């Protein structure tokens, strides 16, 4: 009897492991960051691309109801297609859009904006990528939607899609 229970529990144990592995197979092993909730954006200071003036993130975020920070770069291919969507968003709404120019050369960045339009109210620079990393970004493009208290409402990794845009418009209205 004792023996039976012993073997039965071993069988049950392995069945449990089997189930876990079986379910685990379906999970993607590509890491998807969790929704950030109730977190404030880290404060930073940076130089503006055109005016070369220093700005503190708090000052430019907290004057507006909502702010979208978009990390972009002229060498990043998906940023190009995302740019038209950003232009659309800046034309259609009064959303404060701030660009964070990631690891870019000044000339290339200006050329890029001349060519495709400038949706940004301010364009801050991040020449060695430190600011983006300290904000918790993975790379370019990436966007943070913030409220007036610098709280992160939404974080978009990768290029913004038109669904994202309608979501943003819904939130800010």
């Amino acid at each position, binding site marked *: 009897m004792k023996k039976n229970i012993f073997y039965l529990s071993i069988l049950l144990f392995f069945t449990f492991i089997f189930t876990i*592995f079986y379910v685990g197979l379906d999970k993607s092993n590509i890491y998807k960051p969790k929704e950030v909730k109730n977190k404030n954006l880290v404060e930073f200071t940076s130089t503006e691309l055109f005016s070369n003036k220093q700005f503190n993130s708090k000052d430019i975020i907290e004057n507006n109801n909502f702010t979208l920070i978009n990390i972009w770069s002229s060498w990043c291919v998906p940023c190009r297609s995302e740019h038209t969507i950003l232009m659309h968003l800046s034309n259609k709404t009064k959303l404060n859009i701030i660009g964070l120019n990631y690891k870019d050369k000044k000339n290339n960045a200006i050329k890029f904006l001349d060519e495709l339009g400038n949706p940004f109210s301010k364009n801050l620079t991040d020449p060695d990528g430190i600011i983006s990393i300290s904000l918790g970004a993975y790379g370019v493009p990436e966007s943070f939607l913030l409220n007036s208290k610098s709280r992160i409402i939404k974080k978009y990794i990768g290029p913004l899609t038109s669904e994202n845009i309608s979501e943003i418009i819904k939130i800010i209205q």
Partner: protein
Amino acid sequence: MISSHIGYYSLLLGFIISTSLLFYSIFYFKKNYQKINQKIFSLLFFQFFTVVISFISLVYSFIISDFSNATVYNNSHSTKPIFYKISGTWGNHEGSLLLWLLVLTLFIFLFIIFSKKQPVKYRFLSIFFQQIIISGFFLFLLLTSNPFIFLFPIPNEGLGLNPILQDPALAIHPPILYLGYVGSSIIFSASLASLVQNNINKEWATHIKKWIQAAWFFLTIGILLGSIWAYYELGWGGFWFWDPVENVSLMPWLCLTALFHTVIVLEKRNLLKSWTLILSIATFTFSMIGTFLVRSGILNSVHTFANDPERGVFILIFLFSLIFLSIILFFIYQVNENRYEKNFFLISKETSILINNWFMMYFLSVILIGTTYPIFLEVITNEKISIGPPFFNKLIIPFLILFLIFMAVGPNLKWIKDNYKNIKYSRIVLFLVCIFISFYIVIKTSSEILFISILGGAALYLLFITINEFLNKKNNISQTISHFGFGLFVISILLNSLFSSEFSANMKIGQELVYEKEQIKFLKIKSIDKENYKSIIAKFEIKDEKKNITSLYPEIRIYNQPNILTSEADIKTSIFFDKFIVINLIKGEKIFNVRYQTKPFMIWIWISVCLISIGGILGVLKKN
């Protein structure tokens, strides 16, 4: 084209032979046949032959770059050197499984040849269980990973082999590793057979020991080759990363090492029968778990194969069928333990071997849980965590101290019962001296002095004891060599991690930097076009404090197909130091990221692992 046909149909034939072998082996077993008859023997040979044919036809498709074959198309390119065309055969999922099958069928064939002295029924059953595994792999290959799929229209050019796999060490690493993995399958089948036949005894132990030692030897060398490859090819000077794929090869190794020791107790004293069986079964199970974790893509790793959930499901079901089969057999067939089973004394060789097993199982459990826990956590709580080097170091290193001491003491004890009075006080003095020496070396390295000096002291102690044994020819020589190798291994790794230094900077051509006492000068770069890559070779000169100049030539390769950059480190090895330099391209070709490291005692890490495995193989060659 035609070779793919031959390969495929010969695989199919092999599978049919496998099913017929399953039938015949159990049929003759039931009929009490007195010897392995010609039919079984020729079927086994024929089965091996079909897999050889299939394997050769795949190699041939690779050599002639037959892109109508999907495996060749995905993993080869016509400009690749012939050597890597051949090694590309097993550098991918399908081909490596075919190689695996080749070794499986070879081993059962050899097993039948070399087990003539064993009971016939036991041999029939071994064939039966091995054929279960073999037919499982045939099905796996044919259903989910067919290496002979046709492509139409036929592509003009292949996609190429991942450049980091185009390397001599990695060309021979898989075949040798598989000899180890698959060697454990024979141990698995033989153990189940002897469980059913209830012939677990001294004779069986002597017979299976050779197989254990051989599998262990190949597994050790296989892991070593992988590690050497990682050291110079992955380009950052480490040799073990606690990456899931590495852990997965270490698990069967630990199990096999435990078995290696336990089977000696069985051979000498006819004890620990069920434990020997459990270890034999566990070893192959861990090989299979490894295959599952690597091939299914369930884990994040540097070396993931192209993965496909369907394959994962197949291996998972197959793996657990084997586990359940073993458990059920254990349930049905009782192991008759020796009535002297209870005759264990604290100070004896058998107890010291039990202690070895105890530590081995502990290390195994650390690695097992460290590798699979993220899967459990993700399934149950949907959270992801990473488990890496700090976890393993924290749980393994402290236990290594005791382990080393037991390793020095254990082999000197007698079988059955030894006496407290045989403990020599000079040994304790020696141990203290070792700790002092190690303390003196470590003191300059600031952190955790006490802990590291005791660890180093324990390893030194093991070294001295084994040297002494060697000189006095007191113990079994193969064991002494292996244990000495292990002591050397721990010391080398310790010194290596304590005294490695590295320097990293962005440099221009012609620039000169001073790092500690050395001057590093970036002299020039040269571009060369090779068969399937463009090579940028840089020249560096390192001038040390004695004005000795070492020239180093790190290289960057830009492969044409697939278009991938690799950094080839240049390493100058001497007895005490490796000078290791690697460069990386930074946007534009003007500035390079240079990483220069001095790594003490690297060569001794490799030598010590070689010593460990030489000790093991001496055991196989030795006559009883």
